[in-house]
């Protein structure tokens, strides 16, 4: 199953939650490979295990069984600081509710990860300006997130996720809080960024707009992959 070129590959990944002593399986054995440059959607009804699966492959949650490999290296070998650094350096996150830090300006939000990486201020500034230009928010650099619209905030979140050039961007229902027009605009923007930068996007969604734009759609049901379709 492991592909030499894969960014992330999973082998029979399982996740079982315990609820008052009762075992509830959320993911029941998923094996898949994500290769560089993919624009992939993981779809399925609520409770199908999409978010849990994304949490596991990003190192936010531990699997109850199976293996997750990042560029061939097992995530299970990482703990604490190492796992934080792994997420910082390899994964970009885009959340449903934008989740920017409200007391930091657009620039400070976007540069945060680079700051954690110890990138010098001058370079941070250049990269922030570059990514904000790409997402069309250059003029909002000094604004605080509460002063931006939902669509603008999500653009900042996309910029934050992309600025450190991670191997994989995970987007959990990124359009759920946006109107359809803004959502479509953002998706087109991400699609374009994927095309121009070669950055890999993996979505967890119910949104048909995302499914329509994704080049690969993986369908989950009851914690299992029931369909893995690559569009021509």
């Amino acid at each position: 199953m492991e592909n030499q070129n894969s960014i992330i590959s999973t082998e029979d990944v399982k996740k079982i939650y315990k609820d008052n002593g009762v075992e509830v399986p959320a993911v029941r054995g998923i094996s898949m490979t994500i290769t560089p440059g993919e624009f992939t959607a993981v779809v399925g009804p609520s409770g199908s295990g999409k978010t849990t699966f994304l949490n596991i492959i990003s190192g936010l949650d531990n699997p109850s069984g199976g293996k997750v490999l990042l560029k061939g290296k097992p995530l299970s070998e990482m703990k604490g600081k190492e796992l934080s650094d792994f997420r910082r350096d390899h994964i970009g996150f885009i959340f449903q509710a934008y989740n920017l830090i409200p007391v930091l300006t657009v620039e400070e939000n976007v540069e945060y990860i680079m700051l954690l990486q110890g990138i010098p201020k001058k370079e941070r500034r250049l990269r922030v300006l570059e990514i904000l230009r790409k997402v069309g928010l250059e003029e909002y650099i000094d604004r605080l997130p509460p002063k931006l619209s939902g669509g603008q905030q999500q653009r900042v979140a996309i910029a934050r996720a992309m600025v450190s050039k991670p191997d994989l961007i995970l987007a959990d229902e990124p359009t759920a809080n946006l109107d359809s027009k803004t959502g479509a605009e953002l998706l087109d923007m991400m699609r374009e960024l994927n095309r121009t930068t070669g950055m890999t996007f993996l979505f967890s969604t119910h949104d048909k707009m995302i499914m329509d734009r994704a080049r690969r759609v993986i369908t989950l049901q009851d914690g299992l992959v029931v369909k893995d379709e690559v569009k021509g």
Partner: protein
Amino acid sequence: MWFYMKLAWRNIFRNKRRTVIAGIAIGVGLAALLFTAALMEGMNINMIQSVTSSFLGEAEIHGKGFRETQEVEKTIANPDQLTTELSRDPVVEKFTPRTLSIGMITSPAEANAVVLVGVAPESEKYLSKIDESIAAGKFFEGTNPGDILIGSKLAELLEVAPGDRIVVTVTQANSGDLNQEMFRVSGIYRFGVPEMDSGMAFIRLQTAQKMLGIGNGIHQIAVKFNDIRIASQGNHPFWEKYSGANNEAVGWPILLPQMKTAVDMSWISILITAVILMGLVTFGIINTLFMSFYERMFEFSILGAIGTRPGGLRKLIIFEAAALGIIGIILGVLLGSIALLILNNTGLDYRGIEYAGATFKELIYPAVHIWHYIVFPIGVFVFTIVVGLYPAWVASRLRPADGLRRSL
């Protein structure tokens, strides 16, 4: 580091009302501490001065063994040399020689035992407040060797007034013979201290020396320092310097051990007050930090998810606690200073109240030391950070996935 400080500072102003309330809680605690310490210190100084300036002196020099036995034979060795040295000593402001003996005072109406003190009126004025406490008649005037000052309660008992004659009987040194002299009441004093108003009488030093048959001997030299704190410095060279040649020099802490205990106890009281106040403040800080943490659990999870190390989250919470501490300290110093300024203008009226063998005679004013404004705020700051360690530890143990799930 700077980034977390900046973030922490901005974070605590996200809920201004809560920050202000927590800041006030810390501030009131600090203000109360500053106020209590300054008031206690003021009370101590007032109490010490009340006793030392009434009669005792800040230090006393005696012949060895006199304090324990009160035997009139035990006079100070080399008194002339001693007084010469004292008059040249830079730490000594004033001093006065005295004799002390037990005597019997008899009037036509009554007789009573007293401590008969022989004093040098000119120098005595600077060491005691007998001259300021005269309620009737006059302090020693002229050179009449037959003048005597008695307390108001003793005067009532003896049924005498200024100008009346009384007889004083003492036992002479060495021979043990009784010696009687007639005196004229030149003044009646009222100290407000029952023991002094009913059990002491003052005559001129030369008269007392003659009555006791001790030549030019003296039993006590009362000393006032340039700085009252010298009296409580047990290792000051003064004590050794004047304790040779069969004499002993002791400060008020040894002369009045009960007052020394009371002063020491006051610091224990401040410590207990500090512990109680800080205990209450602890709940305020922990509550604020935890409320803020649980409100922002999703945000903390996001920070963790995008790569903030657990140590980073810990730093953030500790800096938030520190920022809260700084606000509390600013408020506390302001509130405390205002309260102290008011008390400094009004004073606290405990006059007439007796405590640890001393009667407060003056209004009590706070005694503020610069170290109060250094040690207490630093203490509160360190304490706030220590209190912040627990929420910081909880935050650093948060698993991002759990936080994201719980917050949804």
